[in-house]
């Protein structure tokens, strides 16, 4: 990797100041994407701001019926949290199936959501559960957060401090992993919350998206039979050696039905 200056601030304020002062700086959370990128010399930040010592960013707490997860909380902590398992077991399940044990014990929810990799799992949960992303400056609704391929509503120097997930009445996440990387080739998160039914798809397109037709059908009848004839167009979906756009479109249907069945169990 290329040389860079390394910083390890202890507070969000200090971290934000560093990021604002150095326009070529990058924040590092678990480093699950940034470290390989650096090692392959695909990024050349002037400074790396390690959020590992910012204690206020970690932890899981309940606020009313919501589960609030700090940005630096590791996947393994979410997967094993009694609070998450009680309120939204599907979210704990999702976290427990990200990457491998090494990734789950390094990678963080804030890092994953801020990076917005099209094949990441968490964006599906954030959108389907209609979560709210809290940053050092504001609150952002899930539907406003994910903007496109690796693109979010975060401004320069803006950090995710926590994400608040409303309790789900029913929810499940079904992932069809890429056979090689085991990232989501198609992941469908289905959730029924106080706000209604949402179906969010990750992996299939350049960015997480909702399937309105399925949501409407499931709002009337929350069963896999209700969506069995709903297909989604292949146009605009990802295509690579592991899955054509047509195959991914097909898998969205299969995974959605399986998610609904799992949510009903």
């Amino acid at each position: 990797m290329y040389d860079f200056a390394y910083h390890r601030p202890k507070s969000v304020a200090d971290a934000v100041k560093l990021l604002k002062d150095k326009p070529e700086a990058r924040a590092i959370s678990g480093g699950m994407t940034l470290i390989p990128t650096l090692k392959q010399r695909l990024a050349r930040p002037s400074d790396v701001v390690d959020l590992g010592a910012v204690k206020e960013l970690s932890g899981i707490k309940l606020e009313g019926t919501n589960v609030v997860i700090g940005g630096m909380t590791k996947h393994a902590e979410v997967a094993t949290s009694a609070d998450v398992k009680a309120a939204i077991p599907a979210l704990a399940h999702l976290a427990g199936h990200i990457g491998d044990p090494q990734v789950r014990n390094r990678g963080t929810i804030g890092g994953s959501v801020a990076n917005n990799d099209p094949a990441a799992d968490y964006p599906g949960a954030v959108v389907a559960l209609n979560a709210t992303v809290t940053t050092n400056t504001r609150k952002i609704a899930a539907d406003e957060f994910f903007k496109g391929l690796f693109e979010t509503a975060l401004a320069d120097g803006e950090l995710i401090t926590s994400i608040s997930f409303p309790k789900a009445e029913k929810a499940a996440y079904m992932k069809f992993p890429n056979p090689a990387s085991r990232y989501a080739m198609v992941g469908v998160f289905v959730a029924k919350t106080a706000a209604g039914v949402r179906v969010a798809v990750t992996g299939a397109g350049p960015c997480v998206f909702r399937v309105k037709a399925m949501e409407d059908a499931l709002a009337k009848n929350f069963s896999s039979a209700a969506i069995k004839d709903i297909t989604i167009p292949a146009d605009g979906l990802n295509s690579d050696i592991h899955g054509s756009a047509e195959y991914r479109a097909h898998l969205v249907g299969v995974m959605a039905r399986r998610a609904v069945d799992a949510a009903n169990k």
Partner: protein
Amino acid sequence: MTAATGIGARVLRTEDKRFLTGTGRYVDDLPLARATYAYFLRSPHAHAKIKNLDISAAAKMSGVVNIFTGKDLVDAKVGGLICGWVVKDKHGEPHKAPPHPVMAVDTVRYVGDTVAMVVANSYDDAKDAAEAIKVDYDVQPANIDLAKSFDKGSPQVHPEAPGNLIYDWEIGVKADVEAAFAKAAHVTKLDLINNRLIPNAMEPRAAAAEYDKGTGNYTLWSTSQNPHVLRLILSAFVLGIPEHKLRVVAPDVGGGFGSKIFCYADETMVCWAASRVGRPIKWTAERSESFQTDCHGRDHVTHAELALDKDGKFLALKVETIANMGAYLSTFATAVPTYLYATLLAGQYTTPLIYANVKAALTHTAPVDAYRGAGRPEATFVVESIVSKAAAEMKIDPAELRRKNFIPSTAFPYQTPVALQYDSGNYPPIIDEAMKMADYKGFEARRTEAKSRGKLRGIGFSSYIEACGLAPSQVVGSLGAGVGQWESAQIKFNPTGNVQVMTGAHSHGQSHETTFAQIIHDKLGVPMDQIEIVHGDTATTPFGMGSYGSRSLAVGGSAIVKATEKIIAKGKKVAAHLMEASVADVEFENGVFKVTGTDKNVPLAQVVFAAYVPHNYPLAEVEPGMDENAFYDPANFVYPAGTQICELEIDPDTGTTEIVNFTAIDDFGNIINPMIVEGQVHGGIVQGVGQALLEGAVYDKSTGQLISGSFMDYTMPRADNFPSFKLGYKVTPCPHNPLGVKGCGEAGAIASPAAVMNAIHNALAPVGVKHVEMPATPLNVWQSIKGAQRQAAE
């Protein structure tokens, strides 16, 4: 010897202590004082002319010690890399041999081709400088699509091989085969692709070299499967360093699977540059470099036809194959799709007439050479796929069709129509045992039950044969091999009674330190902890041919046995003197010399001591010391055989395949350590299933970029892709080597692709799918089902 540790015992591996505690010593672990570090600048293009190469800015960068380019090698008169097996085409002409410069001079021919070597004080310095090298490429169109390599207008890889043709080779008499086809009651035709694989040994290739200015001696540490052969090639053909001035050491090596047999540009450069730099040089491939520059495996396009009579007896087989060589001919590339492939097309069957035509093609891709099984998996895949297809077409049970055509046990030695003479075997009991273990009878019930869960269940057979234990030197010599293929051993007792056994074989995961020690223990009665197996260093071991082609035990183990016989023969003379008996009356058993019919005895350790301290010793008749060498040249190949049965379920909604049952019954001849053999079979099956379901090297057909260039896109098999395997053995000892052994390292990988794909076709037949190519990924299977549905709807 004792059942606990001798031949046939499940002895825990001696080498595991260091491997499992992280104390193995690999090339990259070497502490070399004042070391420099090498980084290779590689071509980003599949085919380009180098218009200009400017190292001036890079050479001035911090930490840079030296930069070498192809021109430096030309100036220094360094030879090119060689292909060590001359295959003669069907007109008797030797294959086309385009030059293989160690580093590109004016043209790059695949993504990863070596352009420059930067030597610096650290890897980072070397990489920084490599980025500052300015290369002006004139990008040319590339020939990537193997099937179109010979088409008019396909981009040419080398002017020395017009039309990209390396050879047009054949075996068998075409007219006789055609005549048999004319009389056939049934002809089964099959087009298939044997997918290209990237070996991905756990340890990437690495090299380190040091030059001793005082003596003029070079030492090269390399991740080689055959250090003596590497030294021979570097000395005699490439660098011209006299053989006795070059020491090659292959210390602990983390897997090879064939990919570390060959002489590569990187290690050649590290060795050559060490004397020019005047400091040691270290280099370890990054994983991306391994993907791009390790020799790849397989990559055939084949059309095959099998002629049968009305009862299903095979009358004749004809096979047409195009084999990919990549951009340059690697060390043994030419032999793999000819003598290691077409000679195996008889399989386990009495097919009386076989004709095969193989055309080797150049493409703008990484060189292709031997990979676990090397030619034999490709042959088995053709034979076992077409046999199962014929069974399905003729509505004969696939096991029954195989049995009908098996070479009977009474027919050995059996001369096949494709050169090989099988020495031994008994195939029917193997398939019987496999079917019993796999509960073949219960399959239809399981298929029905699976259907009720929405799954398509299938079962597939693969009855393989392989020729391994490479090889009788005069046979391979007559076929064009540049080397002999005997093996060596030296048994060197120390005065205190413990023993060092030097072998020319090389262990890079095969457990020689345990298996060979069991042989010594069994033959000489020396306790296991008093035995050291030494390998991998040209300075300490006798010249040896290394390990590949499942040869270490059958050839190297036999050399060890020969050396034990010499030890015993000498020991008898010494013991006779010590016991004041006639040599003819001395026998040796369980580590003790005895005088027949008396209670007089003397243990081997005492004989050894007497040999090193010969105060009371027959010096007039016997030399002091207890140190014997043996070389063993096998009389024939060995012929392991077996049957695998794969049972799997396909989820038609996603195309996902799950292997639910996998049975393998093998005849490896006598077995030294069943636990180690099972490990080899497990690994082999996993690699073969990897080829069938998961792995595929994919180049972009127009740009030649390696799309499957990392583990993000190249699917390695993982533990959760597999059930527990059911294994068993049937034994017909090899009649021509002293241990009666046959070799087990490649069998799993040779047999399993066909077992899996036959099961896939069996599962998908009810939904109308005719053919699925490897790897049968979820996408591939889903598209096949979808295609069949579309066809049915039309």
